[in-house]
């Protein structure tokens, strides 16, 4: 009996110790697990905080974006207003330019009308011709007519623009355009003179085209004075050099090389004439259309 008690006691003791050990181990495991969970929870908390922070930043950025969009819309509206305003200013400037030109022409017309009867003791042309007791009778777009000389021996004379002294050109407000336009064209025998702007000279046919304001005049170069012929030959040489340089540039282009000569036409008066570009453009606007 005593032995049995001892063995049973020993077994119980061992079982008690085993149970105690089991609980001890589990408690440690739970403690470790708990600590790990706490760490994970702390990590999750920091991640959560970070996400909240990011969410806050995103919300702020979104608000900023909305503000920027509003500003952009506002600026776009302002830009449209500025564009309109610039466009209106350009129209106003254009209108002022036209007004200025109209006033200039009006004033010049008045100056030229009042010039009739103006008296000058003497006058010398750029070509060296000297006139005394000069009285202007008419100022025209292509020159000036005047009387000169002493009473009883007076003569009448007309001067083309290129014969006018520079102070007269300035005084009667002849423009560069008029000076260019009013080149005189004199016949080979010197008996006839026409005024007009040089348009073209075709070396192959010898035809010279000028614009006298009322239309085109065509001359054979042989009908013109030596001075005119020399001028035309100079122009032809100058034109050839310029044309060669332009053609060289056009030859390098896909578009320009095909249309540089003999392809384009332009309306002048009542007819189409061959048109050659006076420069080598970088871009072409092509407009496909028809009258129908």
């Amino acid at each position, binding site marked *: 009996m005593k032995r049995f008690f001892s063995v049973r006691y020993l077994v119980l003791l061992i079982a008690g110790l085993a149970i105690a050990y089991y609980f001890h181990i589990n408690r440690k495991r739970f403690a470790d697990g708990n600590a790990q969970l706490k760490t994970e929870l702390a990590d999750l908390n920091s991640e959560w905080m970070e996400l909240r922070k990011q969410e806050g930043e995103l919300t702020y950025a979104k608000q900023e974006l909305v503000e920027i969009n509003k500003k952009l819309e506002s600026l776009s509206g302002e830009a449209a207003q500025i564009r309109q305003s610039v466009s209106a200013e350009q129209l106003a400037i254009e209108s002022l330019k036209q007004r200025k030109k109209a006033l200039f022409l009006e004033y010049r017309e008045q100056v030229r009308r009042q010039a009739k009867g103006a008296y000058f003791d003497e006058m010398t042309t750029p070509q060296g011709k000297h006139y005394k007791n000069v009285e202007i009778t008419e100022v025209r777009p292509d020159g000036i007519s005047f009387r000169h000389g002493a009473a009883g021996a007076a003569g009448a004379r007309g001067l083309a623009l290129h014969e006018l002294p520079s102070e007269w050109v300035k005084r009667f407000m002849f423009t560069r355009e008029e000076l260019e336009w009013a080149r005189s064209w004199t016949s080979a025998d010197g008996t006839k003179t026409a005024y007009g702007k040089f348009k073209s000279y075709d070396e192959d046919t010898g035809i010279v085209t000028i614009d006298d304001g009322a239309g085109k005049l065509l001359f054979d170069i042989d009908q013109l004075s030596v001075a005119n012929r020399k001028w035309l030959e100079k122009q032809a040489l100058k034109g050839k050099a310029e044309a060669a340089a332009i053609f060289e540039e056009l030859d*390098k*282009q*896909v*578009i*320009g090389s*095909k*249309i540089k000569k*003999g*392809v*384009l*036409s*332009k*309306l002048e008066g*009542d*007819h*189409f004439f061959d*048109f050659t*570009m006076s*420069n*080598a*453009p*970088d*871009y*072409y*606007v*092509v*407009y*496909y*259309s*028809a*009258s*129908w």
Partner: protein
Amino acid sequence: MESFNKKIATNDKVEFIHFSLDRTSEAALKWAKKENFPWAHVLADKHAESGLKKYAKKFVPYYMLVDKDGKILAEGSQAVFAMVDDL
């Protein structure tokens, strides 16, 4: 015409070319005189040699902005004239 005068006539970098799809030069001339067109034309008999026929569409009017190397930069009047502003 207004766009041409404002944006192209004074711009040396750009040339305006009218590719006339009228079958005869007489018809093209009649129209050009009526409207007093200031630009250069490619008339029917010069279509092939102009090198511009290949860009034509099956409808008119058609505007095209092309660079000197033949690259199309814009199509349609609005896009073309808007781009011409920047040239």
